[in-house]
């Protein structure tokens, strides 16, 4: 039985896995203690639970527990990593490198630092969404202190070559931060294999609760120091003050543990669903274009442009499916997705794009429904589209000519 609307927006957020919720619940009630309370069992119990979760999160990414700093979410983690490192290492240099397709949490943080006098290089990406390693190499100077490049993109699901980037950064003595929000728990991600110095994580993208994230901060080879952005009681080894969100952290830990256990089988299953969706749409429709590399891509991502159909009107027709569009007809500027533009997608095709984000709770039956529904609405809207009509006339002229 299908449940509507069908949720295929798992890059935006994921539902909390029932196993995660079950783990969390006692920490709202019986075990409500503050993990920083040293004088009674309520506090000890909370601290113990946080320790377990810290280890679970660390194990997901090949880190040690002491290298995990809990935050309110990945936006905070990105801010702490980039501002914290930039301000700490300012004497060493004032140059940062990132990429134009980064999440706004990274881009806007870098823009903020520009106002503080830092120089930031925003590297372009290739047509497939991947960063050009030669350009990255050429951009590094002896004033560069940090490279921040995401592991997987939130719109097009493209996986960056982080192991190569990490190696390059390490050789040049530059710190490497990666926003691993979309990648962690979905594809193998190991901070040592990829020479990552800092990594941002978020619980709610991996079937955990909202409002909790983490920053991995390397402690050895090299030991990374950060200037905190929140001052207070000195929690999280002074890097992030504030009472720990114990239930959230417990849920995050459990979510990470499940992802780790099920990663191999889940990534294969979700890739299968994604391919079923992609093949189905291509069987039903002509002139559809997949945005970003197909090869270097998250299992659950399909970002596709349906030529001649505007994304928002398509969403309106498929309102029993929860997905998102690269079109931004509501904004004053009418600017479509900056990520798609960076890939060289025309504005027209960017307006025609839909992001499907498949996840743990999607089924083949749902995929089949989505293929049928989307195809029917695209066909209907194309019949209403003057652009489709013009293209067909043009084709006829070409054939006759």
């Amino acid at each position, binding site marked *: 039985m299908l449940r509507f609307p069908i949720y295929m927006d798992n890059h935006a957020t994921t539902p909390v896995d029932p196993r995660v919720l079950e783990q969390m619940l006692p920490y709202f009630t019986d075990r409500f203690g503050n993990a920083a309370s040293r004088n009674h069992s309520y506090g000890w119990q909370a601290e113990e639970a946080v320790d377990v979760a810290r280890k679970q999160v660390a194990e997901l990414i090949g880190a040690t527990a002491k290298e995990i700093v809990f935050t309110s979410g990945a936006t905070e983690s990105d801010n702490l990593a980039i501002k914290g490192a930039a301000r700490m290492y300012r004497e060493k240099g004032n140059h940062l490198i990132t990429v134009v397709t980064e999440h706004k949490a990274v881009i806007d943080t870098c823009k903020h630092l520009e106002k503080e006098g830092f120089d930031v290089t925003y590297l372009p990406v290739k047509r497939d969404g991947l960063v050009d390693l030669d350009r990255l190499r050429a951009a590094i100077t002896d004033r560069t202190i940090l490279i921040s490049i995401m592991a997987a993109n939130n719109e097009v699901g493209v996986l960056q070559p982080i192991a190569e980037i990490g190696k390059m950064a390490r050789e040049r003595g530059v710190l490497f931060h990666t926003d691993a929000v979309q990648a962690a728990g979905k594809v193998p991600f190991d901070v040592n294999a990829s020479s990552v110095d800092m990594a941002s994580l978020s619980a709610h993208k991996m079937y955990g609760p909202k409002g909790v994230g983490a920053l991995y901060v390397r402690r050895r080879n090299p030991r990374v120091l950060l200037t905190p952005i929140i001052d207070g009681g000195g929690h999280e080894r002074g890097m992030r003050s504030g009472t720990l969100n114990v239930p959230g952290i417990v849920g995050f830990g459990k979510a990470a543990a499940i992802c780790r256990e099920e990663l191999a089988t889940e990534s294969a299953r979700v890739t299968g669903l994604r391919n079923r969706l992609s093949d189905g749409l291509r069987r039903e429709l002509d002139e559809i274009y997949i945005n970003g590399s197909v090869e270097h891509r998250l299992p659950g991502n399909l970002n596709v442009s349906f030529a001649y159909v505007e994304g928002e009107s398509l969403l309106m027709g498929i309102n029993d499916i929860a997905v998102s569009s690269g079109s931004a007809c509501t904004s004053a500027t009418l600017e479509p997705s900056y990520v798609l533009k960076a890939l060289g997608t*025309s504005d027209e095709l960017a*307006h025609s794009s839909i992001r499907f984000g498949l996840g743990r709770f999607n089924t083949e039956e749902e995929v089949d429904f989505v293929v049928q529904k989307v195809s029917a609405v695209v066909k209907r809207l194309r019949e209403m589209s003057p652009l489709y009509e013009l293209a067909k006339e043009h084709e006829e002229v070409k054939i006759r000519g």
Partner: protein
Amino acid sequence: MSYSEKVIDHYNNPRNVGSLPKGDTAVGTGLVGAPECGDVMKLQVRVNPETGVIDDAKFKTFGCGSAIASSSLATEWLKGKTLEQALEIKNVDIVQELSLPPVKIHCSVLAEDAIKAAIADYKRKQQDGQ
């Protein structure tokens, strides 16, 4: 984005979708907007040469639900009007009828432009024909 019931109705049951023969001297065609902006409207009117009244109107639109609804509504209103009456249709009338939110006002502006462009095209054809 939540749409008004009237927008949803026009989106689900668009009036007068289609095309009239562009070459016909009784037909005026307006094509406005740009695909890179996310909105293109083609609006056509056929004018009865005896009465000067618009006896048919068709549209095709690439754009959001509000753009589709604005052009669909425009074709409905155009039928039975003289050219002078047709030119009196203003974007604010469309905004009001469809309860368009501020971010969607440009859709109604585009529909008004499409009406003007179609009528201008028709008038040009009459002059060229003389």
